[in-house]
C-alpha cells in the first residue's frame, strides 16, 4: 500500500476546453485571514438546492453565534445557523442576489458584542473513527453543510449514495481568479484530508483521490507531504503491532493525488471524473453508477469542522480579488456579510465599479446591487473596473456579429455538443430540435462563448432555451390538467343531464300510468261494485251450502 506512488498523472482527458488567463496570483499570495465582523448581516433562507429553510427564531430574539436560526423541516434542504451573535432585526424579503433580481426571504441580524462560538448546538460525538455512519451523517446534516464548490447540493443527501468505491476530492479549481481551495490545501491539508476520510468512512469508500490541476504546485506539495506523513504513521503502526490486518490502518482508504493538465473546465464534476478515471458518467445517471463520489475541498473542510470541532457551517473561505481590491486574498467571511461591507473593508473605489462578479468570470453572476450578501455558494468575489469610460476587462454589451459556423465552439465544448446548432435552434426558437440536440447536456461552462469570434453570448441563448422549454413543459402539463378537468366537467354535466332526463322520464311515465288507471276506473266505483258483487256471491253460496246440509240432515233423520 505504501509502495504506491502518491502522485499520478491523469489517465483520461475530456474533449475541448479552453485556457483562459488565470489571474490567480492576485489572490493566492497572501495567507488566509479573517475579517472584522460586519454590524449588519442578511442571511437568505435559500442558500442551497432544495426547499427554503423555515426560520425558528422571532424578531427581537437574541441569538448566539452557531445557534440554529432556520431549519429544514421536510425534504431536501439545509439548516442555517447564526454566523454571529446578535439580535434578529427582521425576517422578510431582502435582496439576496437571486438571478431574477427579486428579493427573497432572509433573516436580518444586528451584531452584538459576545462572539463566542457555542459548539453545543451540534451534538457531541465520539472520535469519528468510532462513530456510526448514521451519526456522522446526522452531524453533517445538523451542521447545514452543502456542496461549497458552487452547486450547494445538501452534502448529507449526497453521502447517502450506496456502492461507492472511490471518493474523488475535487481540487481542480479551474476558474480564473479563484484560489480559495488552493490556499486551503496549502495551509490546512491535514484538515481537508481528515474531512475526506470522514466522508470516505460514511460511504465506505476504499480509496480517496485528490484531483488537482498542475498550476497549483504548492498545494500539491503540501498535500503530498501530509499524505506521506499519514502513510508513514500507518506503516509504523503496522510495524509495531506486527498484525496489519487487525490494526485500524488496514481498513483505512488509500490516499492518492491525480494531477491534470490545466484546462478549463476540468473542475466540472463530469470532466473531473473523465480526467481521473477515463470514463464518462452515463446519461441521466449519477457518478455513483461508476462507484464514484465527488466532493469539493471546502465541503470536506467544513465536514472536518462539523465532526471534529462541532462547528456548524456559518462562514466560508472566499477569494476577494480584482484590480480594485486593496489586499486581495482569501478570507473567512460569515454568511450574510453584504458586499457593501466588503467594498468598505477592501477600499474598493465605488466610482469605478458598476457590478461585482460572484463566482468566477466563466460561470459567475454579475451583481450590481451591493446589498447582496455572501452565501454558501459564494466562493469568489471579483471587483474589477467595469465602468465603460475605463478600459475594461469585461466586454461591453454590444450587438454581436453573425455566426459564421466556424465551429470553434464545437472544438471547445467539453460535452461534445454542437453549440452552433444549439444557437441556431435557440435563436429561431425551435424548441423541439433544440432539446434533441442535447441542450440539457450543456453544463453552461461558457467555453463556447469564450472562443466565439462573433462574440455571441451563446450560454445566454442556452439558458433562455432551457427556461422556455421548462416553461412550455409546465404549461403543457397545466393545459393537460385543465383539459382533463374540463372533460370531466363536461362528462359530469352530461351525466347529470341524462340522469335528470331519466328521472323526468320515469316520473312522467308514472304519472302517465296513474292517469291511465284513472281513465279506466276514474273513481274506483267499478272495483267497489265488483267487490260488493263478490261479497254477495259469497253470501249466496254460503246460504246455499247451509241449506243443503240442513236438507241432508233432515233426510238422515
Amino acid at each position, binding site marked *: 500500500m505504501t509502495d504506491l506512488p502518491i502522485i499520478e498523472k491523469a489517465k483520461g482527458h475530456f*474533449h475541448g476546453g479552453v485556457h483562459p488567463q488565470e489571474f490567480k496570483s492576485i489572490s493566492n499570495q497572501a495567507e488566509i485571514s479573517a475579517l472584522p465582523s460586519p454590524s449588519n448581516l442578511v442571511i437568505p433562507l435559500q442558500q442551497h438546492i432544495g426547499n427554503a429553510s423555515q426560520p425558528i427564531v422571532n424578531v427581537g430574539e437574541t441569538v448566539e453565534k452557531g445557534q440554529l436560526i432556520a431549519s429544514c423541516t421536510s425534504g431536501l434542504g439545509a439548516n442555517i445557523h447564526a454566523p454571529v451573535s446578535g439580535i434578529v432585526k427582521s425576517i422578510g424579503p431582502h435582496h439576496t442576489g437571486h438571478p431574477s433580481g427579486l428579493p427573497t426571504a432572509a433573516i436580518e441580524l444586528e451584531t452584538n458584542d459576545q462572539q463566542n462560538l457555542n459548539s453545543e448546538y451540534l451534538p457531541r460525538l465520539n472520535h469519528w473513527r468510532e462513530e456510526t455512519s448514521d451519526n456522522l451523517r446526522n452531524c453533517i446534516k445538523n451542521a447545514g453543510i452543502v456542496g461549497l464548490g458552487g452547486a450547494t447540493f445538501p452534502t448529507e443527501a449526497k453521502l447517502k449514495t450506496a456502492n461507492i468505491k472511490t471518493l474523488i476530492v475535487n481540487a481542480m479549481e479551474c476558474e480564473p481568479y479563484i484560489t480559495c481551495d488552493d490556499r486551503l490545501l496549502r495551509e490546512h491539508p491535514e484538515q481537508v484530508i481528515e474531512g475526506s476520510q470522514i466522508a470516505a468512512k460514511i460511504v465506505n469508500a476504499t480509496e480517496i483521490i485528490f484531483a488537482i490541476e498542475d498550476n497549483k504546485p504548492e498545494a500539491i506539495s503540501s498535500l503530498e507531504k501530509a499524505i506521506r506523513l499519514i502513510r508513514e504513521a500507518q506503516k509504523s503502526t503496522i510495524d509495531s503491532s506486527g498484525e496489519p490486518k487487525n490494526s485500524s490502518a488496514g481498513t483505512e482508504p488509500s490516499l492518492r493525488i491525480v494531477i491534470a493538465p490545466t484546462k478549463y473546465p476540468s473542475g466540472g464534476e463530469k470532466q473531473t471524473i473523465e480526467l481521473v478515471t477515463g470514463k464518462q458518467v452515463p446519461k441521466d445517471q449519477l457518478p455513483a453508477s461508476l462507484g464514484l463520489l465527488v466532493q469539493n475541498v471546502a465541503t470536506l473542510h467544513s465536514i472536518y469542522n462539523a465532526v471534529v470541532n462541532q462547528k456548524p457551517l456559518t462562514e466560508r473561505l472566499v477569494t476577494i480579488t480584482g484590480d480594485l481590491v486593496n489586499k486581495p486574498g482569501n478570507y473567512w467571511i460569515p454568511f450574510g456579510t453584504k458586499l457593501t461591507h466588503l467594498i468598505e473593508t477592501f477600499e474598493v473605489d465605488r466610482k469605478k465599479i458598476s457590478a461585482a462578479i460572484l463566482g468566477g468570470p466563466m460561470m459567475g453572476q454579475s451583481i450590481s446591487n451591493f446589498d447582496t450578501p455572501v452565501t454558501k455558494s459564494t466562493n469568489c468575489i471579483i471587483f474589477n473596473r467595469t465602468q465603460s469610460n475605463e478600459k475594461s476587462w469585461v466586454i461591453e454589451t454590444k450587438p454581436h456579429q453573425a455566426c459564421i459556423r466556424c465551429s470553434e465552439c464545437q472544438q471547445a465544448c467539453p460535452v461534445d455538443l454542437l453549440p452552433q446548432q444549439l444557437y441556431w435552434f435557440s435563436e429561431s426558437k425551435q424548441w423541439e430540435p433544440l432539446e434533441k440536440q442535447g441542450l440539457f447536456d450543456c453544463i453552461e461552462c461558457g467555453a463556447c462563448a*469564450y472562443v466565439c*469570434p462573433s462574440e455571441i453570448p451563446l450560454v445566454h441563448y442556452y439558458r433562455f432555451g432551457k427556461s422556455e422549454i421548462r416553461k412550455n413543459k409546465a404549461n403543457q402539463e397545466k393545459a393537460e390538467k385543465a383539459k382533463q378537468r374540463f372533460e370531466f366537467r363536461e362528462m359530469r354535466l352530461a351525466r347529470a343531464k341524462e340522469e335528470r332526463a331519466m328521472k323526468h322520464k320515469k316520473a312522467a311515465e308514472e304519472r302517465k300510468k296513474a292517469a291511465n288507471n284513472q281513465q279506466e276506473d276514474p273513481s274506483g266505483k267499478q272495483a267497489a261494485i265488483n267487490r260488493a258483487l263478490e261479497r254477495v256471491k259469497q253470501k249466496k253460496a254460503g246460504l246455499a251450502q247451509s241449506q243443503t246440509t240442513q236438507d241432508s240432515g233432515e233426510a238422515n233423520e
Partner: protein
Amino acid sequence: MKLSSPFFHHSLPTNKVMLLVILALIPGAAIQFYFFGYGVLINLILCSIFAVTAEYFVLYLRNRAPQEVLKDNSALLTGILLGLAIPTTLPIWMTFIGTWFAIIFAKQLYGGLGLNPFNPAMVGYVLLLISFPVEMTAWMPSRDLTANQPSLVQSLELVLFSQTSSGLTVNDFRTLADGYTMATPLDHVKTEHVLGKMSSEIFSKELFQANQNGWMWVNFGYLIGGIYLLFNKVIRWQIPVSLLASIFVTSGVLNLFDEELFSSSWFHLTSGATMLGAFFIATDPVSAATTPKGRLIYGASIGFLVVIIRTFGGYPEAIAFAVLLLNLATPTIDHYTKPTIYGHSKDQQDQDDDKQNGTAANE
C-alpha cells in the same frame, strides 16, 4: 458590463478573421500578379469595389445599418476570392455581373453572412463560367512564354473595351510567337486528350512545361498562405488535408491505371485553383461542414469530384463545381456525423436521431 457569464472572452473577432484570410492570400496573389500581369490587380480592385457596393446596396434596401455590417469584411473577401478566380482580361461588365450576383443572390437574399448555403464567390464564378465560357477560359499564358504581356494601360483597355487602342484583342496577347494560342494547362491537357494525344506527348512539350511552371508557383503561393492560416488556427486542418489527400489518391489511382490517359497527382495538385480551393474556398466556414468527421468527408469528396470532373467532365477546372455540390450535401453530412455527446452511447444517440426523423417524416 455583460449581464450573464462568461464575462471572459478571447478570440480573434470575425472581422479580423476575414482580414487575416485576405492577408494570407497575398503571397499567392503576388505570384499570380507576377506571372499573369496587371489584369490580376485590376480584377482584385474591381471585384472588391463591386462586392462592397453590392453589399452596401442590399443592406441599405434591407435597412440593416450598412456601415456596421460592412465592417465584418466578408463581402470584401468574397470579392477578392472571385477576383483571383476569373481570367485577367475579363470584360468589366462580366466582372460586375458575377460579383453582384454572388453578393446579392448567393448571400444577401439568403439573409447575409452566416446564412448562405453556397459559397458566394463560387456561385458568381460558376454563373460567369456557364454564361460566358469563351471569355472565362481565356487565360493569359504565363510570363515566361509571352514576349508581349499587356501593360497596365493595355490591360485596362482590354478590361474596359475588350481591345486596346491599337486594336489588339485578348487573343492577340494569348497567341505566342509561333502563332500558337496557349490555353491553361488544365484546358490544354483536356483538349489534347480528347484529340487522342498521349500524356507523354503533351507533357514533353517545352511550351506546356513553361506555362505549367507558372501555375505551379501560383499554387505554391496559396499553399504558403494556407499554412499560415492553419498555424493561426483561422482554419482547421481537416478540410484542406482531406481535400488534397483525396486529389492525390484519386488521380494517383487513375494514373496507375493508365498513365498515358490520366495526368499525374503532381499535375493535379499544382494546377488550376487546387491550393486556392483547398485552403481558401472549401474552408469557407459558412457553407462547409462543421463537425470534425463531417469536414473530412466534405474535403475528401471535393477532392474526389475535382479529379473526376477535370478528367471526365466538360470543363477544364472543377473546384467551383465540386465545392458547390458539396455545399448541397453539407446539412446531410453534418446530420450523420454528429459527435457523441458526453455520457451518451453512440447507438442510443443514433436511435434517437432515427426516431426524430421518423416522427418528422410522419408529420
